[in-house]
C-alpha cells in the first residue's frame, strides 16, 4: 500500500513523496513536497483463527513555501485518495515545519485491504 500511495501522489502532483523524518537538515526542504508515515496496519475480519483483511493507516503531509497552495493541495489530495478507495475523515490539520519558510498540513488516511480469495 505504501507503493500505491506514493505512486498516486507522485503521478498526480509530479512531486517527491518522502518518508517523514528522512529529509536532511544539511540539504534543506525542497520548495514543496509530500511526506508520509505508516502508523500501523491492523488485522481485521478475524475468523478461522486469523485476519482476512488489513487496515493500513498513514499520515500524509504536504509542505510548501506557498501557504495557499498547502490548503489547496491537501484538499485535492484528500479527494484523489478518496476516489481510489481511501478513507479520510475531515479536511486535514496544520502540522509543524522545521523550516520557517514552509507551512505544512496533513491528514490521516486509511485503506482496508481485503485478502484475495477471502
Amino acid at each position, binding site marked *: 500500500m505504501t507503493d500505491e500511495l506514493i505512486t498516486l501522489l507522485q503521478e498526480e502532483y509530479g512531486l517527491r513523496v518522502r518518508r*517523514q*523524518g528522512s*529529509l*536532511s*537538515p544539511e540539504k534543506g526542504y525542497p520548495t514543496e513536497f509530500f511526506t508520509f508515515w505508516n502508523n500501523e496496519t491492523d488485522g481485521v475480519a478475524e475468523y478461522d483463527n486469523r485476519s482476512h483483511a488489513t487496515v493500513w493507516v498513514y499520515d500524509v503531509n504536504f509542505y510548501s513555501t506557498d501557504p495557499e497552495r498547502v490548503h489547496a493541495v491537501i484538499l485535492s489530495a484528500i479527494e484523489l485518495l478518496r476516489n481510489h478507495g481511501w478513507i479520510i475523515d475531515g479536511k486535514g*490539520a496544520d502540522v*509543524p515545519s*522545521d523550516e520557517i519558510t514552509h507551512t505544512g498540513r496533513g*491528514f490521516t488516511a486509511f485503506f482496508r485491504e481485503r485478502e484475495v480469495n477471502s
Partner: protein
Amino acid sequence: MAKNNTIRLDTSGLEDLMRKLVRVEHAAAKETIEGVLEEAAQRIQTDTHLAMAKNYLPAQGQYWTGKTAASIIDDPHVEWEGMVGSVPVGFDFSKPGAGGYLIKGRKPSATGTPYMAPDPMLNKMFRGTAYMKGIQDEMYDKVLRHIEEAWDEK
C-alpha cells in the same frame, strides 16, 4: 388439636446474598477503582519516560530540548464524574512545548517533521489502539477479580 395451615418464607438464602453483595460493594468501592486507575497511570508514566529516552527519539535525540519530557504527567490523581473515574496520562498539554513535534494533540494528525520521524514508542502508546486497549483490559480484569474474590469469600 390440628395444626394451623401456614405459609413460610425462608430468608436464610437472602441474608447470605446480602452479605455477599455488601462484600462486592466494598470490593468495587471508589478506593479500589482509584487504586487500579493509579496503578495503570503509573505504568503509562514509566513507559512514557522510557519512550523519551534519547536513544528512542528521532535523530538520536539531537532535537531534544527537555520541554516535552518536563510535561509528562508524573503525579496523576483520579477525578470522578458521577460513576466514571478518570486519570490524566501522558503529557500535560497546558505546559508550553508539551508533545511538541513528537506527538500532536488528541485528534489523530501528523506527527514528526520532515527532519524528524515520529517517535515509534510514543506513537504506539498514544496513537495506536493496542497499547491503551491492553491497559484498559488489565484494569477491568483486576476489578473483576476483586469482585469475584469478594463474592467467593466464605
